[in-house]
């Protein structure tokens, strides 16, 4: 019992940090992904190429390595000491840049699945390109990509544990420390349960959203 009175508050504090990483990543990567997807589909070849290379690199190297590079890059490359708070900045930037690459490809698949006739109808009706994208294309894209997005978002729940390598006291970091000090599996078990409940909540929200968008079919 005495163990629980330490484990639960510590894991709780860790969970709050995990949740923060999760929310910040989504807030940054969901819009950034659209920008990258549009760049990737641009008719301006150099821009498209840059986006292609970016996506390839972000998906082709470990997120853990990217986090370390952001954490220590400023010092190793430029000799700049970013201070102790930098790990949170490195963590947020690393997650956002990495997830935006995955999101971009999901957006692209959705955008390219919209029939060209919708663009033509919008053009003839006089919609500007921005109006066409935001009022005609994007709402349809969201419905189409929701299942694929759901996969990524659930992966993100668990990927937040990678912040461990930056010494951020998120839930996994806490669980490891607690397991070591109590010589017990219990902190891991509880942490696993909390991750699972977290993903169940995410699944629930995704299902609700999917139902809400079920009012029409193509």
């Amino acid at each position, binding site marked *: 019992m005495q163990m629980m009175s330490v484990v639960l508050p510590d894991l709780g504090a860790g969970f709050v940090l995990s949740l923060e990483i999760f929310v910040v990543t989504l807030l940054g990567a969901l819009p950034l992904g659209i920008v990258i997807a549009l760049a990737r589909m641009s008719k301006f070849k150099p821009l498209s190429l840059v986006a292609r290379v970016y996506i390839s690199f972000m998906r082709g190297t470990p997120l853990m390595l990217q986090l370390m590079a952001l954490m220590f890059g400023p010092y190793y490359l430029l000799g700049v000491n970013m201070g102790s708070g930098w790990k949170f900045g490195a963590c947020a930037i690393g997650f956002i840049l990495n997830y935006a690459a995955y999101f971009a490809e999901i957006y692209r698949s959705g955008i390219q699945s919209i*029939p060209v*006739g*919708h663009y*033509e*109808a919008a*053009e*003839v*009706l*006089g*919609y500007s390109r921005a*109006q066409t994208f935001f*009022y*005609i294309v994007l*709402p*349809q894209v969201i*419905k189409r990509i929701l299942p694929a997005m759901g996969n990524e978002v659930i992966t993100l729940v668990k990927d937040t544990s990678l912040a461990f390598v930056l010494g951020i006291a998120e839930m996994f970091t806490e669980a490891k420390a607690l397991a070591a000090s109590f010589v017990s599996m219990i902190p891991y078990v509880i942490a696993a349960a909390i991750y699972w409940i977290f993903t169940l909540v995410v699944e629930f929200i995704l299902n609700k959203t999917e139902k809400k968008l079920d*009012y*029409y*079919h*193509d």
Partner: protein
Amino acid sequence: MAKEILSLRNVEKSFGDTMVLKDISLEVTQGEVVSIIGSSGGGKSTLLRCATLLETFERGYLAYEDIVVAQPGPDGRAVYADKATLKKARSKFGLVFQNFNLFPHRTVLQNVMDAPVRVQKIDKEEARAMALELLAKFGLAGKEDMVPNELSGGQLQRVAIARALCTKPDILFFDEPTSALDPELTQDVLRIIRDLAEEHMTMVIVTHEMTFARDVSDRVIFMDKGVIVEEGTPEQVIDHPRHERTRAFLRKIYD
């Protein structure tokens, strides 16, 4: 003399090495109904797409009344007007597609009233009243809040016509408006176009429905291999074609 709504002169258009429109000229005056007939690949749809700015042509002249969309430059190639002019030209015409192209995520009413509100900045209530009136006129009262996938093909095309009309175009183009419909639904749509013709809506209709074209048109154009082979009243072109290509085409249709 009636006002000239659409002027297309000496238009040439190629896809790669294939010339699909060869020196095409088409003038449509106010209140006129023009049908374009001909076999697939003859350039009918491309002509419509050029007129509605979905495609650009290499040579020729295009204007909606006094709005010049494209004209020959010094080297003879067509030069298109600036964005603002093109936008102004777009407000002059509407286009009804073969496969409707309604926006599936928006209700029938939103599909019809959105462009007037968002593009033309018409007052929302006014646009709604206009949309409801059009929908009622086309036998779609009570369907306003449905989404496209709840409607039949014939109803979808009627919504699409209402959407095109709600922007108050001076001329309406139809690209094979009944080709994607079951035969029993075709008549609903044709009846509406007939009604519009009686109201003297200016229309250009690409169609395979010969009986309909004969009844509704002031003028029929037969296109083949990128040229206008024959053009005249329905009696001249459909009933008494002078050219062998027209005759061959009509024989094929009626067999």
